[in-house]
């Protein structure tokens, strides 16, 4: 049995767990506990403190694992461990919360430094009225034109599939280019 891995990263409450949940054939394994901060409690009542883990079985010989990194900065020591051996990664950005863009940029640059592997950026929550438009998110994240920025609604399986497929197309391109 061959296994391959992709990592889903991004800042707190960007939608990583939901993204994996939308396509995983197994219940997403995540350890959660109540948070203590008043601010964050207003955003979500539970938060992951361990990684998310999902699975997509291709056939009896091949399985894709999806790993979600913990959202909080204090768990960033895990990012390097999780990024080892990954096919590629997805950076999730909460389009409705510009206050998270700086952190998303920082996470992106950190992962790029760990591993020169293909990646895409998913602008999540694009169905919300107060979400920023893709072009504005692109400029806010300083993404150059060559980086794919994709609209995403993590609760919508089709958009999640599109993000995964675009990452895979990137990986194919890299393999074909022979670099």
């Amino acid at each position, binding site marked *: 049995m061959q296994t391959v891995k992709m990592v889903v990263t991004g800042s707190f409450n960007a939608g990583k767990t939901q993204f994996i949940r939308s*396509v995983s054939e197994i219940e997403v394994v995540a350890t959660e506990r109540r948070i203590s901060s008043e601010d964050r409690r207003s955003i979500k009542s539970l938060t992951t403190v361990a990684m998310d883990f999902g699975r997509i079985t291709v056939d009896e010989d091949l399985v894709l694992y999806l790993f979600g990194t913990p959202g909080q900065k204090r768990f960033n020591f895990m990012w390097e461990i999780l990024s080892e051996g990954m096919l590629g990664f997805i950076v999730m950005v909460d389009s409705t919360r*510009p206050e998270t863009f700086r952190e998303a940029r920082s996470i992106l640059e950190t992962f790029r*430094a760990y591993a020169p592997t293909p990646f895409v950026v998913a602008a999540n929550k694009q169905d919300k009225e107060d979400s920023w438009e893709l072009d504005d998110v692109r400029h806010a994240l*300083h993404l150059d034109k060559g980086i794919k920025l994709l609209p995403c609604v993590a609760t919508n399986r089709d958009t999640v599939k599109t993000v995964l*497929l675009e990452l*895979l197309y990137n*990986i194919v391109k*890299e393999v074909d280019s022979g670099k």
Partner: protein
Amino acid sequence: MALRGNLRDFTITQLLNLINLASKTGTLVVDGASEQAYISFREGKLAYARIGKEDGNLASLLYKANKITTNQYRAIADRAGQMTDKELGLLLINAGYVTQEDILLNLQGYFTDMVRKLFTWVEGIFRFENEMLPPDDRINIKLDLENIIIEGSHRFRDLEKLQDEVPNLDMALKFTERPLTNVNLSLDEWKVVKFVDPKNTMRQIAETNMLTETEIRRIVYGLLQAGLVELARPADRLVRQYQKMFPTQDKVEQKSLLNKLIGRIRTM
């Protein structure tokens, strides 16, 4: 879906950067603690600015800049109060009291001062209104934003956020497609620009120029905000780690594996 948020989370410098890079046309409206600001742009360039109840009409600007006398100012107020700034400007130029250059320079200075005032606002709800254009009765300018952005980035003091903006000094820099002309940089900024090349990491550039980590971060932040450079992986780190990524080293098998994954996801 309007571009909106709070200055607490997204600074004026970052907003100007976004407006500049996206070549936006419209007006940035900011609700400050005690007054409202309106900064208008055309294709990413500063066109007009007003804060609070400050009128900023042409006559008062020229008077404050000593381009017209007190008597001239009073005469304009008495007899030309209904004129638009454009009409008044033409009148004054034709009468030989001021030149077109006088008018444009003074307006540029005034609008830039308005933006500088905004740099001191740390809190306030902002929104960018695409449909709101500069007022018709006022003279609009066309001022590039790069220098204002760099000036704004110099004020960036929060070291922790600076660390987030430029987290890894082992990355390199490369120039963007925007031309580096008419940009006012400090000596240290020019020293850094001289070494911008994917072969040089920021750490190496800092060491060569005897800059501290904070100093190089601040300089690079300013250059990033102005859209003059972007981060790049250092040229000597283009090693592909596919041997770890794939369970097989054979390229044909790697392609087959990827095609299987693509096929599987498509059918989900």
